């Protein structure tokens, strides 16, 4: 899990303009300025990074990083 969270953190800081200081496992996606469009874009990037598909109805701006990581980890497994 921690590995997935770390990789999400790297993607968000390098591709989605999230300052490293704002990133944490507890952070809510919308607080990182990740709106629904940004999350669709994240789905495309995550598909390349993790090899999994994330559909629009599986993730919400009100989710935390940990919830997003749990979703990705469940698909990778």
């Amino acid at each position: 899990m921690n590995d997935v969270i770390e990789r999400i953190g790297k993607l968000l800081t390098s591709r989605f303009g999230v300052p490293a200081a704002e990133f944490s496992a507890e952070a809510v996606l919308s607080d990182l300025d990740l709106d629904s469009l940004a999350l669709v874009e994240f789905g495309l990037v995550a598909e390349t990074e993790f090899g999994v598909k994330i559909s629009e109805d599986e993730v919400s701006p009100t989710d935390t990083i940990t919830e997003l990581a749990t979703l990705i980890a469940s698909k990778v497994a």
Partner: protein
Amino acid sequence: MSWSGFDVAVTGIGMVTPAGVGTEASWANILRGVPAAAPDPVLAGLPVDFSCRVPGFDAEVTLGPKVTWRTDRYTHLALAAAREAVGDAGLDPATWDGARVGVVIGNALGGTSTFEAQHDVLRREGAERVSPMLIPMMGISMVAGYLAIDLAATGPNLVTVTACASGATAIGTARELLRCGKCDVVLAGGTEASITPLIVSTFAKMGALSRRCADAARASRPFDVDRDGFVPAEGAAILVLERAADARARRAVVRARITGFGASADAHHATMPDPSGAGVQQAIAMALADAGVGPGEVDHVNAHGTATPLNDVTEARVLRRMLGDRPAVTSVKGVTGHSLGGAGAIEAACTVLAVQHSVVPPTANLDRQDPEIDIDVVAGAPRAMPISTAISNSFGFGGQNAVLVVSAA
């Protein structure tokens, strides 16, 4: 009803141009007359492989990473220019009445680099891989929307599209919004960042571009006998405009005034200027009438001066016919190249600075003036001279003409 002489103050300027990042750097290099054109790695291998890019602009540093990743470069340039302009005007978006602040930005082509990149994704990887950010990044309206978000400006918000006249049309339109009382402040200007392989290839195929690939710095040569086309450029400029009475009331520094605006259509040809110059003449006459000044009072002309064979001779004939040999004429495109929707605003900013500082920048690369061009073009060095009244010309494909009158504060 006569509106003649309606007075709009320019209280702030922001410039992000091939001559430099920031108004001070841009103006200094435009006065020096050093051409910005250089070989462009993005265009390597194309028939025209050079351009005028903004040097040393890092959007992430200037705007922050959260804004940068979700906006196209044409918006980056405008955001940076707008922030500079608002600061220069001494205004604070945290305290202003945003409902009274309008945004009018000229742009010709939108986020073309985003568009081209995502088209490549569609062809290579399929529809499911296309970014959902494409429309909000490339849409021509988006730049004005992002400026509103960035600066809490909730008044009238629009983008003017009149090709290479877009930036001047925006400033003229902003003047109308102030005149009819729908805004107290308008951020008006233009932006473009369309130096992409597709756009440059088609301009080259049209025959509009200089082919002086082996000598890029000398390629943009307005009014010169050896000119052979324009040099593609990027850039933005934004002005803060207010009614002059309001500006005086808040004791703002007034750099100069926008006292007239004229617009017309050639109704002649899609891309070629009307050789009679009738449309251009009509726009200049409308602008001068709007300002309430006569053709004999124009001290300085910031010409459209693209360095295409047809534009320069046609424009010069109209200037000679209407204004005689009095005005000192320049084209800053010798330095900056031609930034399409950004050009009219960059040149309006230069005209304001020329009036404010009583100096006309030189036309770079004007070594031997075309004998067909019988006007007083400033070349070699800046010319110090008092300027009460100046005009800035901008003409677009489509035959759209826009002319601004700039008067001393």
